[in-house]
């Protein structure tokens, strides 16, 4: 019997003139960036779940609906990436005026990436250990990776990803799972920091029903397709690589038009990816709309739209076309259970 809870909060009025496509909270959860069909990106300060008065900024620069926004790691400053139907990826940076540290800064466009020939549907910053790098997925079937260099210039790699179109990208954690558990000398002040070898790798989701894993070959300086994950029967809408919290396993979650969410696990760098479907029929997520037929086991009632991992990677949030967001957790027996359901 699910327990009921009500969340009473004042919504943030974005004043977007059209539907919102994406919203992202920054690294500290204090700033909210939204993007919309109205071709703008907006940034708000959020205090206790509510908008800080007078904190809104509107970032104009796209010539079409803006699909996604992504915050860079704070060590690079306040930097946002946005991607749009106009085929562009824009990088925005906030700067403060002299003596106005506390006041709202000024957002300026610092880079325009226009190598794609169709809508760019997804942007994702790489783990900060790898540098300031953005991966992009486009309807032109290509993936691109932008790399910010120390001299202030950008480099771009672009390559074929998924026929028909690429829907989403998600970076692997910078360190190989399990490597952080291996005992190593703790860095002490005065000694150089020791960090395990970083890995440049990301997953992409496409309209070819596939998920592909890409790795950067340092020798050839090129992106190489390492693995293909087959399991969905329709477009893969979203992909999310779980953060590495020292667990020996790698986890990837994928959401598809085929109404399933698959969890892909890989026990070691050499073992294969094994897939498990989330089963909403065994949980609160099975509470369907009155009158609607119940979804078969392992399937959600509608298209699954988005998947996202919590900070430590132990909770997976899923949004479905049935108007509900569900939270999933792997229990002590290794079974995925729905632990929360958010509905209007």
């Amino acid at each position, binding site marked *: 019997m699910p327990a009921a809870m009500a969340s009473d909060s004042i919504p943030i009025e974005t004043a977007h003139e059209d539907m919102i496509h994406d919203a992202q909270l920054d690294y500290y959860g204090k700033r909210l960036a939204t993007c919309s069909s109205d071709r703008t990106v907006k940034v708000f300060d959020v205090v206790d779940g509510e908008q800080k008065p007078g904190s809104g900024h509107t970032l104009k620069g796209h010539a079409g609906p803006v699909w996604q926004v992504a915050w860079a790691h*704070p060590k690079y400053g306040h930097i946002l990436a946005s991607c749009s139907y106009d085929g562009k990826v824009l990088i925005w940076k906030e700067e403060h005026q002299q003596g106005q540290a506390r006041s709202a800064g000024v957002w300026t466009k610092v880079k325009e990436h226009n190598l794609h020939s169709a809508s760019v549907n997804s942007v994702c910053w790489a783990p900060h250990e790898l540098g300031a790098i953005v991966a992009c997925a486009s309807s032109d079937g290509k993936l691109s990776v932008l790399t910010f260099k120390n001299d202030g210039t950008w480099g771009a790699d672009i390559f074929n990803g998924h026929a028909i179109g690429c829907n989403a990208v998600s970076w692997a954690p910078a360190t190989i799972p399990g490597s952080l558990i291996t005992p190593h000398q703790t860095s002490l002040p005065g000694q150089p920091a020791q960090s395990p070898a970083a890995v440049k790798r990301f997953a992409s989701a496409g309209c070819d029903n596939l998920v592909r894993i890409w790795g950067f070959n340092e020798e050839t300086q090129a992106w190489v397709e390492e693995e293909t994950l087959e399991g969905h029967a329709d477009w893969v809408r979203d992909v999310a690589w779980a953060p590495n919290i020292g667990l020996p396993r790698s986890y990837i979650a994928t959401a598809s038009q085929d109404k399933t969410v698959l969890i892909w696990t890989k026990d070691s760098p050499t073992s294969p990816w094994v897939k498990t479907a989330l089963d909403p029929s065994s949980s609160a997520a099975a509470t369907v709309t009155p*009158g609607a037929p119940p979804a078969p086991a392992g399937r959600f009632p509608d298209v699954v739209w988005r998947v*996202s991992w919590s900070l430590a990677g132990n909770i997976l949030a899923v949004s479905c076309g049935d108007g509900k*967001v569900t939270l999933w957790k792997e229990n002590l027996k290794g079974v995925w259970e729905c632990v*929360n359901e958010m509905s209007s």
Partner: protein
Amino acid sequence: MSTCVSLIPPLFEESCLEDYLKSGRTVSFTLRPTANELALFATPLDADFRTGQPTSQNYPKEQDVYVTCWDEVPTSERRLFITDTSIIFAAFRALVDHVKTNEPELMRAMEYMTAFRKLAGDYITHIQECWVHASQTISRPQEDTRFTGEHYRSMYTSLSIFQTLYLPEEGIDDVPVGDELLEWLNTHFIEPSTEEGDQLSALEKPWEDETFWQYLIRVTLRGLTKSSIFFLQALSQHPSEHLQMISEKLVSILEKHPRQKNYATEKEFFTASRRWKDRAKALRLELDRVPDDDRQDEFENWWDNISDLLGIIEGRAEVLQRVCVELGGDWKEIICTWGVWIDVGLRRAELPDIAGRVMYDVPSDPSSKEDSLHADLFLGRPLQALSVAHDIDVWLAAHLADIMIPLGLLDSETDDESKLTIRDQYVIAYADYLQSDPGLWRHTVDYLCSCGPVGHQMADEILLRVPLRLEESAGKHDAETSDGDLAEVVKDINNTCFEYQREPVRRMICKVAAQKLVMMKKYGLAISYCLSAEDWPGLGRIVDRVLNEYIAHGPSRFTSLVADIAPSLQELQVEPGPHGVFVQRLKFAVRYAEFHHRSRSGAVDYAALDLISMFEEDLAPKSWWGVLLNDSTPFLQNESTLYFSAADASLLLRRLEEVKIQTDHGYGDDYLGVLARTMNLTGAKEALKRLDVLRICLARYFARCILKGKSRIV
């Protein structure tokens, strides 16, 4: 168990869900990294939505984002409970770690078991306080709906019985446990009520009341001897002479009921108990001799009730079990009175067996989590107990599991897949809950850092995301706040990192703090954080930013900014390291600012020394040579004083020559770029022309030096 969270105000009314979905919309979200929160918003789902066409004609104008928490954020009372008990947790951890490191073989020695019991007792005291407090505030509607008085009461009873069963007094496990169990029962499940006793005692002929016999049997069963004796004595007024006689004898028996605490040795206690039971058996013979026609008064069959009472005293298990059930008691009442009436030698080790047998006939209540937890604890099933405790309150499971480890109740090996122990999994679940309030980050980190490498990794993520609040504090007291106060949070995080040896995390936080401070133009503090992070390239970038201030705004702002960063240089010179190039750049900035300061304050001769020294010591980056050479012109032009020696002037000439040659080779920007920017010139060639003046000045200067006939005039 899953929880449904509903938004108020709703994104759409529940009854309108179908229309909402038909319009092609669904709900999307983003997770908040620092709390158990997500932001929800309506978004178009339509598969062909990527047409790029505006959608506004179909949808309402409001585009709102809801930020909501999937755990209830702790109320102030709950926070207090969390904070207070975290201190006990830390003490418990410290003790366990100490023993593990120094005397692992003595983990379950009397001394440490006593200490564990004491700490468990501290937890119990806090829960008891919460129970009392929450019971008093039950009528406040805004308060937490989950953590009611009843909730804390169930935690109180559960942790208390855990302490009774697994943390014996003085750490001695192998002793009769009957009295302790009865005490727990009488403390937490009071029966019969005081009101009933008061009511009956007010009656002249209490046996005429329908509750009399039940009351008398239950007070006897519960070991409440004074009440038993009081009402047995009241029976001296009963019309039946047989009952008068038997009750009198029962009083005499109960008055001499041997209790463990009154005996020095177990042997004496057992002997006394055996003899005492013989007296009860003797009374049974007399009871049996009561004629059938005198066994009932006008109200009740007193003989049956006295027989039950005597049966319990005689130690008849079947009587005790039947009577308990008839009185409305449960399995707990049977087991907790077992060691007083049936088997006075009952040991803790025997409890799972007895409990299993009792529960076979009188099962626990599956609808009550509290009862299920008690049952698992009696049955010696710690894993099942933790699972139920987790459903009651993640706090309870985490802290129970933490205590279970040193007691050897849980496997301390890590699970192959999760790399976590059972204990760690429950403690991490509690830490997850704590994240619903980002203000509790210190506690979240404390708990996570007790969970091995995986917990430490999780703690790192929490630490990295604690807002540094630099902007806020800067704005609040711009004028009066010292830089030290500004970074209070950063210091706090740094200390936590030191405590748990999270050095890479500490460095990253210092780097981010430095980056933020640079944005705020607090260069001095930014540099000290760079040094703390040992981020030498970062230090270089800050110095470049400061030098850029000179280019953009001239010497006045530059000198005041450098005054801020100069103290860092002294710190660096004391600690040599592999960061030469960046320290050189900082030295240059400081020396150059000093030069300007001296020039402006009239110490012109010292300023000249500074200028020359920057060339002599190779402090000046090549890109600044043009600027320095240009700065030297006024000194050379001074008609009254020769500020440089001939050798100094030669050095200036050599540098000027190099600049000219490199410019001729097309590398002018490397030497004159900064000068061109400071003077708003179009490029290196124009800048070089400006230096033509210097060439003439130098020629004249050499001539003056020869005329004066000495190498240096001050």
